[in-house]
């Protein structure tokens, strides 16, 4: 589903940072991969390269067989197939919940208003927020906003979902409701790449855990492997710090 081959990404501004160094990774259809690692290790950059919000300098990325770094690729088509959920929700503040979910269905998928509306309501129901459909995002709690953001991404019928620390900006009591939605998605067989510090989620839901440090994948394996006997010293140190 997602095949990453030897990608590197270096930021030059404000100063040189090698955010990704020769990273390779394959994520199979229906697989849930959790990415962990210290701050600045390149987790977000890795995720953002997968839908070309950042363009990798080197290497090759195939999404469902499409080479997204090829100049002839219509990146908007690929992005519509890969949903993304951000740490800061990024809902459109000038649109109601319903219209947040409707918008891209209308302009990208060219669905009729009626069809979009039906899909929107089904998804809002699924994330448990249908009663707030006519409310503006600033009247919602963080957890509610993030659930709308998930619904908004799902409305495109994506083949894969990328989550960049979806619960890091939430008050502790709201983390559960968002993780619950993500768990449901995972059970339904969605291909997911999740950057998170929620080790409980990783343990319970992940098929595979990836540990990144300094732009490299240091270690990967099943959750059992990670949380019982990680092999690298850096992994051990990191897990000791956060657990």
């Amino acid at each position, binding site marked *: 589903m997602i095949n990453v081959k030897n990608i590197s990404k270096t930021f030059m501004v404000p100063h040189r940072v090698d955010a990704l160094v020769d990273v390779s990774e394959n994520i199979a259809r229906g697989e849930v991969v959790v990415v962990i690692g210290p701050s600045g290790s390149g987790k977000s950059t890795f995720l953002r390269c997968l*839908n070309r*919000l950042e363009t990798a300098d080197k290497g090759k990325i195939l999404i469902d067989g499409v080479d997204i770094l090829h100049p002839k690729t219509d990146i*908007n*088509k*690929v*992005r*519509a*197939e*890969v*949903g*993304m959920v*951000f740490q*800061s929700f*990024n*809902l*459109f*503040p*000038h649109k109601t919940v319903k219209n947040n979910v409707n*918008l*891209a269905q209308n*302009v*990208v998928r060219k669905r009729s208003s009626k069809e979009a509306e039906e899909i929107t309501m089904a998804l809002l129901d699924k994330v448990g927020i249908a009663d707030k459909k006519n409310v503006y995002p600033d009247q919602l709690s963080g957890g509610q906003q993030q659930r709308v*953001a998930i619904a*908004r*991404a799902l409305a*495109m019928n994506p083949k894969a979902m990328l989550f960049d620390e979806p619960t890091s900006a939430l008050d502790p009591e709201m983390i559960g409701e968002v993780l619950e939605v993500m768990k449901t998605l995972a059970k339904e067989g969605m291909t997911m790449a999740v950057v998170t510090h929620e080790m409980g989620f990783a343990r319970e839901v992940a098929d595979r855990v990836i540990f990144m440090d300094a732009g490299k994948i240091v270690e990967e394996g099943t959750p059992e492997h990670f949380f019982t006997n990680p092999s690298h010293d850096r992994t051990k140190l990191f897990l000791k710090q956060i657990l």
Partner: protein
Amino acid sequence: MESTSSLLQKQQKRSYYMWVVVFFLVIFTCLGSLYYCTLKIDYTWRWYRVPQYFFFNEEIEVRTDVAGSVEAIEETTDGTIIRINSDDGDSVDYAYPSKDVRLYEGDTVFEGDVLGSYREWRMGILLQGLWLTLKVSFIAIIFGIFLGLGAGLARISSNPAFKWLSITYIELVRGSPLLVQIFIWYFVLGTLVNTMLAQYGVSQIPPLWFGVASLATFTGAYVAEIVRSGIQSIHKGQTEASRSLGMTYTQSMYHVILPQAFIRIIPPLAGQFISLIKDSSLLGIIAIRELTKATREVVTTSLQPFELWFVCAILYLVLTFALSMLLQYLEKRMIHS
């Protein structure tokens, strides 16, 4: 026994009212000393002379263009119709809205003779100037918005041609005085265009349009900067969210970024448009009789400079105040919708 806190409140109130009194004192002292000085130099205020420059009642004489004899004079409910039998044998009707008739049936008339007269309200020169200022500003604002939007979007584009063209335009306009730009539009570009048009036998473009063009390009550059900073003030996450859903750059701009940016740029735009209305007073130098030039002309004929310049200033104030009210209303409506 009063509590100390209520004593404090009382004292604060007293000092507040004292400063209100100071405010009015300062205002009245200014006005009073102005009036006193005008008395000292024997200036006579004649406010009653001002209204005629807004509206005046003109007597208009109706004259015949043919020679002949008056065949009939007919009084109708709303005026008079005079039929003249011309020497060529045609009969010509003259109708006007009054009962004032200067001749009798059967009289012989020559070309240009006065048949009668009526009175009509006419727009005075100040009102004409005000109207022209309003018109020029309105057209310049409309063009300025489109120019500014285009240049602002080009300014943040990654296409070097668009970006550099926009930077060149903005810097050129912002770096030179408007007065000089008006001269360039009128004496350089205007001469070029009109001379070329004359060579092809096409009619000339009047100065008004070069004036409007100078104001529009001037405002456009400032609007471009306002648009640019408005767009850049929208959080990067908005673009990322919309693009990650598969929207194109244009779709994301149109549906997500610009609607949010517009609400933020309305207040600085209002300031810019108010400046534009005031700057339109410079157009007098290229023979456009807007409000300031109209006032200057009236002053030279009426010799009442004090009243007229105050009136002129107040008229500008009315225009700018109305505009800022309108934009405030727009802003509120956009926020609520």
